[in-house]
């Protein structure tokens, strides 16, 4: 878990998912549809403070789902997001923060670019 939150956070994904997130905001149903056979992370929508990690996620998701091979790294102003860090019993990756599923309606169109 990061010690402190940077001003910008990043999310790497394939181009189609990135377009949907930027255009419509976070959507629980669309996220489930994109997750495929492994299913979504039930704790919520993950972001990272490390743009390099986001770029690696973008390349992998693009390779898995199609579209431009670099994928897309979305970014957002951390102050505009209802971010949470992992609780004491909750696993998170290095530099990972997340938006809980119940907070998705707070993240509308244009928040991620």
């Amino acid at each position, binding site marked *: 878990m990061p010690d402190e939150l940077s001003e910008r956070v990043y999310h790497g994904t394939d181009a189609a998912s990135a377009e949907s997130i930027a255009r419509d905001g976070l959507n629980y149903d669309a996220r489930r549809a994109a997750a495929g056979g492994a299913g979504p992370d039930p704790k919520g929508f993950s972001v990272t403070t490390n743009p390099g990690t986001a770029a690696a996620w973008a*390349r992998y998701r693009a390779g898995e789902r199609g579209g431009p091979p670099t994928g897309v790294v979305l970014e957002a102003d951390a102050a505009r997001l209802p971010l949470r860090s992992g609780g004491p019993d909750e696993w998170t990756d290095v530099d990972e923060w997340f938006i809980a599923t119940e907070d998705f309606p707070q993240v509308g169109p244009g928040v991620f670019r």
Partner: protein
Amino acid sequence: MGFLELTLYKHPSGVAFDPSKVIAKARAAFPEATFIPGDQAAAEAQRAEVFLAEELREDPHGPARTVVASLRRKAKSYGPSFAFTIPVAGSKPIRGLARSVAVGFHFQEPLPVPIRERLYGFLKCLGVGFLEVPKEGGKTHDIVADLRGSSDCLRDGPGVPWLKPAAPATTEVG
């Protein structure tokens, strides 16, 4: 799009599904379904390791390692993940997914009431968990039932695999 899901994430029961038992029940309930062999979450982590192999070689502790480690942890925490599809006449198939953390169905188009009732019935017969449906056009979800009955589809042994074990208490010395 739409979904129906029975989730144990943050459910007070403190139990986890055994996806193999859920799939056995699904085979009986949906004989027309096609079951995809293997743990899909573990397979995803393996695909990532192959796809990012060059980056992992060049920078063994870099961002690619974070991605692979994250997928492996999620496969272990929420999996195994068994997928299946249920055909629907004149429509795209329903996607089913059984994980230790949740069992659910995802569909592209509105479902006829009898099919929807079958899916509801199957999830309710699993006995325990929050039954969730889409809300606000799918932006979020609503809990329509909190099942707290018995279930014959649970993992043996205490605890749930998606919770991080508590750190051991430290004792002051001296």
